[in-house]
């Protein structure tokens, strides 16, 4: 059984796991603050241009956003189940569930890629590159600038999350996680759930109403 290295400042693995967990929650809180700034900008501009924002939301392809919502919810389930599997020492099942999570992350990015291409084709680009003839308003320009920044940051997080999932899949296959030692796997799945949490709020704001 693989036992992770114990930092010299820790009395035992339990203390090390506690410190890692608290550190991860603090990191997640700082990530939420990053997205909070973007949500605040969205709220301010929406309060300034409510009609333009509604027109722009109706212009977005609901099917793309909804497909990605269901993909990320399913990926959160597989990430959560991987934790259940490792607690039962089911190494191969853990690796399979982590790989499925990474695959769904890739599927999310593929759908996003189709949507981005669609937007480029219709001139719905950010900032000064905005060329839409259907929505030639300043408010719609603001909406699509925010749309690109928010979904772009989120896609960056998904990409990082896929990297984490692939890394953990390799470690699970190498038998580096066990029922007693899997704190790093817990940290990785927490990060993936954060990606899901952000999309849960982006979806209604950018696609629904």
């Amino acid at each position: 059984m693989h036992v992770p290295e114990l930092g010299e400042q820790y009395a035992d693995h339990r203390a090390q796991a506690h410190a890692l967990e608290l550190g991860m929650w603090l990191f997640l809180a700082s990530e939420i603050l990053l997205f909070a700034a973007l949500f605040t900008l969205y709220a301010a501009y929406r309060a300034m241009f409510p009609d333009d924002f509604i027109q722009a939301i109706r212009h977005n392809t609901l099917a793309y956003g909804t497909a990605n919502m269901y993909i990320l919810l399913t990926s959160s389930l597989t990430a959560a189940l991987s934790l259940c599997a490792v607690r039962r020492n089911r190494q191969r099942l853990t690796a399979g569930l982590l790989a499925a999570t990474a695959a769904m992350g890739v599927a999310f990015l593929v759908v996003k890629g189709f949507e981005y291409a669609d937007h480029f084709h219709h001139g719905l680009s950010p900032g000064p590159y905005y060329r839409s003839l259907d929505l030639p308003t300043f408010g719609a320009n603001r909406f699509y600038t925010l749309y690109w920044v928010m979904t772009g940051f989120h896609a960056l997080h998904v990409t990082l999350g896929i990297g984490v999932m692939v890394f953990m899949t390799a470690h699970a296959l190498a038998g580096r996680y066990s029922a007693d030692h899997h704190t790093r796997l817990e940290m990785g799945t927490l990060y993936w759930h954060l990606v899901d949490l952000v999309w849960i709020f982006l979806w209604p704001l950018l696609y629904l109403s």
Partner: protein
Amino acid sequence: MRDVSINLATFVALLVLATASLVVGMLLKTWWLGLVIGLLLAAVKAHLVLWNFMEMAKQPFRTHLMAGVSVLLVVLLISLTVLDVVTRVRDGDKPRPAPNESFYVR
């Protein structure tokens, strides 16, 4: 086995809530009502993910406190910003007339 069934039940609840958000978003014509309901459903979904998938339920009180304070600060940040924007004097609004001298005499 219990944690697996909790995760599966959470997933089903999330699917139902997501579908409810979709139906509300498509059917409601009043945008602000759709937005409020959509955000409320999103908050419930986020709570389910945090509590069950992220196992916040098993975390100590200090982690609950940290998460709660973070959410409160984010809500304050967004609501105060929106309040500032919606209460600003618009270009078309006339400025208030200056009070005359009798206003200052007690």
